[in-house]
């Protein structure tokens, strides 16, 4: 949403030029006097760069940051919340955020956190039944220069439009400010119980509101006849449906032929990640998840478009312009979890309008966003075939030639824990209970007296998950956090059809035993338990930040992110062993500024003076060298954002977890 006025553009010709050329800067245009800068969309802009050109907070003073204010979300729901994933917005000095277990909307004074207004919708049982509860990732802001609106999706899957000045419903939108998203959905679903909701914000571009869909996670899906996760566009002024895109194509539509058994019954294929938009090309980029069955595909045989695809659709009509499938018939739950990042990159002597998609599998897919064609070749490579009855296997998968995978992929002996020879030896013994192989080795059948499934990494939560990456439009470098964790995927013949109507389900622990069978254990190892003396099976770094230079496709740098966890520093078998910083496994995103890459830690550690907390760290964006670290009482749970108000730069993020109730914490430099 642009807030550039003619006056400010004339006053700041250089910035106005940049504004017109660099999508990332459009959302961060200065307001009165050049002393205030907004943050008006979840990712900082519709390109989802999570970039700010502000530089008052920099390498020289990062360690001086002080808490400016805090906003505790506890009262905004019937019970406390501990996992606040929001990125709040700031427009004209007002911060807008979702908050609390009710997903209330709250407007705050962005200078001090004072509550200006709040809005709540009590949806009763409908919300309790929803697959995505809690406060969600946030909300969206729209203005035509006069009117200002806040839009969000409730826990119970209703699209609400509020007057940003008052918090009152927009009477011209839907029915008294509300559009019931379970209606007019090209399928009949139960308003109370249907398995659909949304954690992401709606995406507002020009005068269109785009809304995706999310469903219950499905290793053992209750039914393959689930709700279909279609994507819709609505008129921001009226709430009228403008278009729908069938992420599972209907008979006769493009993509239907990629399904062996038709599409009539199967569901899911929602878009639960953030959506990006190029307003100039008038295209919206939809990152689609899997059709039903995160790790088992009997009811979606074939490539099954548009599963795990990026789909570019016309912003006004929803008509598909191109699509790119990142995984064919995925069996690893590597659905696309985060926003694609739009970036204009120099390539072969010209500027390519590109789209870069971080993923759970730690490939960064870089495509031309006008055509969907890869910027660097992404050849189809043969992959191992599995042997689960009724399953369908794609013979090949697309493997990017560049950039290189930014975290560990596949499973092999040399990724195992190696602090000591004894630990390595035990890890090897543990590994031998499972099948292993390169990336895209499929889940295998659990055999009580044989192998206990397939070991994988990244695991089914990534790699990179919903927080996604950030991007510097001035240097064309993309930054992304990822974690390294082992996982196991066991294909198990289902015996409980009350629980799931799939013949085969995916498990990560010992399956139900036959009567009289004792729990299985070999050499102290149990199925699915992948810890060696309480330590992770794979070696560190457990979490890292990678800087990928999109001018070349090469890594600029890579650093472990996060202090070595207490459990490793204090482990009795590691006494006396010098361990470099291991990083931490979690779900966090970076913020990029003029000079820094900023990211909080995802877990709690104990500091030298005994205080428990997590650090907010800043790295030199050119080198990866750490420039500062500020203590927080709890880990980062929502991605950091920044804005300037009356000459002061603020840095705000959501923290919480463990026994620490969720809050927004705002930092600024001392006066």
């Amino acid at each position, binding site marked *: 949403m642009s807030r550039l006025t003619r006056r400010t553009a004339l006053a700041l010709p250089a910035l106005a030029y940049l504004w017109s050329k660099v999508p990332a800067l459009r959302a961060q245009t200065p307001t009165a006097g050049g002393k205030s800068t907004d943050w008006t969309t979840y990712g900082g802009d519709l390109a989802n760069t999570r970039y700010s050109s502000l530089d008052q907070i920099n390498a020289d003073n990062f360690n001086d940051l002080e808490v400016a204010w805090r906003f505790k979300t506890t009262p905004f729901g019937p*019970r*406390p*919340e*501990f*996992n606040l994933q929001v990125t709040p917005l700031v427009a004209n000095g007002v911060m807008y955020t979702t908050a609390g*277990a009710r997903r209330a909307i709250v407007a705050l004074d962005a200078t001090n956190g004072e509550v200006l207004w709040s809005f709540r919708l009590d949806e009763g049982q409908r919300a*309790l*039944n929803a697959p*995505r*509860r*809690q406060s969600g990732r946030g909300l969206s802001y729209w203005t035509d220069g006069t009117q200002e609106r806040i839009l969000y999706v409730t826990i119970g899957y209703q699209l609400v439009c509020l007057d940003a000045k008052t918090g009152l419903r927009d009477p011209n939108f839907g029915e008294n400010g509300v559009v019931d998203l379970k209606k007019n959905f090209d399928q009949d679903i139960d308003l109370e119980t249907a398995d659909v909701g949304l*954690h992401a914000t709606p995406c507002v571009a020009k005068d269109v509101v785009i809304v995706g869909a999310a469903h*219950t*996670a499905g*290793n053992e899906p209750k039914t393959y006849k689930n709700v279909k996760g279609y994507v819709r566009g609505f008129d921001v002024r009226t709430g009228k449906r403008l278009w729908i895109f069938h992420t599972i194509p209907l008979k006769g539509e493009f993509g239907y032929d990629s399904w062996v058994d038709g599409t009539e019954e199967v569901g899911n294929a929602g878009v639960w990640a953030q959506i990006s938009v190029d307003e100039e090309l008038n295209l919206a980029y939809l990152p689609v998840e899997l059709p039903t069955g995160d790790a088992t595909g009997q009811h979606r045989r074939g490539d099954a478009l548009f599963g795990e695809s990026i789909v570019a659709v016309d912003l006004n009509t929803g008509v598909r312009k191109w699509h790119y499938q990142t995984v064919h018939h995925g069996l690893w739950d590597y659905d696309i*979890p985060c926003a694609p990042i739009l970036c204009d990159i120099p390539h072969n002597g010209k500027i390519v309008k590109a789209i870069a998609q971080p993923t759970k599998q730690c490939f960064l897919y870089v495509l031309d966003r006008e055509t969907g064609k890869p910027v660097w070749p992404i050849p189809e490579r043969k992959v191992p075939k599995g042997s689960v009855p009724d399953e369908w296997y794609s013979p090949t998968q697309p493997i990017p030639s560049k950039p290189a995978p930014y975290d560990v992929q596949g499973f092999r002996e040399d990724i195992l824990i190696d602090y000591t020879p004894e630990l390595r030896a035990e890890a090897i013994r543990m590994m031998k209970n499972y099948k292993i192989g390169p990336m895209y080795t499929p889940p295998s059948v659990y055999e009580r007296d044989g192998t206990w499934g397939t070991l994988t990494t990244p*695991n*089914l*939560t990534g790699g990179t*998950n*919903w927080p996604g990456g950030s991007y510097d439009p001035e240097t064309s470098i993309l930054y992304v956090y990822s974690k390294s964790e082992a*996982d*196991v995927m066991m294909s198990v013949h289902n015996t409980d059809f009350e629980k799931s109507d799939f013949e085969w389900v995916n*498990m*990560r*622990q010992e399956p139900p035993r036959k009567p009289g069978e004792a729990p299985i254990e070999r050499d102290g190892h149990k199925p*699915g*338990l992948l*810890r060696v*003396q*309480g*330590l*992770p099976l794979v070696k560190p770094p*457990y979490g890292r930040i990678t800087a990928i230079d999109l001018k070349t496709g090469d890594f600029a740098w890579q650093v472990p992110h996060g202090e070595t*966890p*207490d*459990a*490793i520093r*204090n*482990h009795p078998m590691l006494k006396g062993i010098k361990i470099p910083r291991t990083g*931490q*496994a*979690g779900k966090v995103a970076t913020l990029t500024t003029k000079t820094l890459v900023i990211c909080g830690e*995802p*877990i*709690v*550690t*104990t500091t030298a003076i005994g205080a*428990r907390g997590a650090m907010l760290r800043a790295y030199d964006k050119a080198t990866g060298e750490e420039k500062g670290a500020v203590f927080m009482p709890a*880990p980062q749970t929502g991605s950091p954002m920044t804005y300037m108000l009356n000459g002061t730069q603020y840095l705000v993020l959501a923290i919480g*977890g*463990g*026994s620490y109730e969720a809050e927004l914490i705002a930092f600024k430099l001392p006066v």
Partner: protein
Amino acid sequence: MNTAMKSVTMIAAGVAALAVSYSAFAQGAGAAASAGVYTDAQAGRGKAIYDAQCAACHGGTLAGADMSPPLAGGTFLANWSNQPLSELANRIRTTMPMDNPGTLSTAQTADVVAFILKSNGFKAGTTELPRNAQMMQQIKLDTPTGG
């Protein structure tokens, strides 16, 4: 078992419980989860509750999913390290399961905490984890020692 034997058994159990309570709480500074603060039977009950109420989101191995945090392993232990077990029990009791929060009894919650302890490698003891929040408040989550 006759009445007299039952009484003896109950007294013996009571003495054992007191002995553990003493060892666990007498120091005043409180006890540690690694001292063996639940029983295998309790963890077994906790597993049944977990499978029915929690596993759909947190997974059979307590590894978490896209939307739900892990309840076993390094991240979980780090975020709860040195916290009283009453805090963990309180969070479970007041916010979980998310589709029906507040419906687990204090006893069921204690059973689930016992199962979580077991899943994280804390060894079992001979006395059940109490449902009483004031008692649980004196037991801190430390480092598992296996079991």
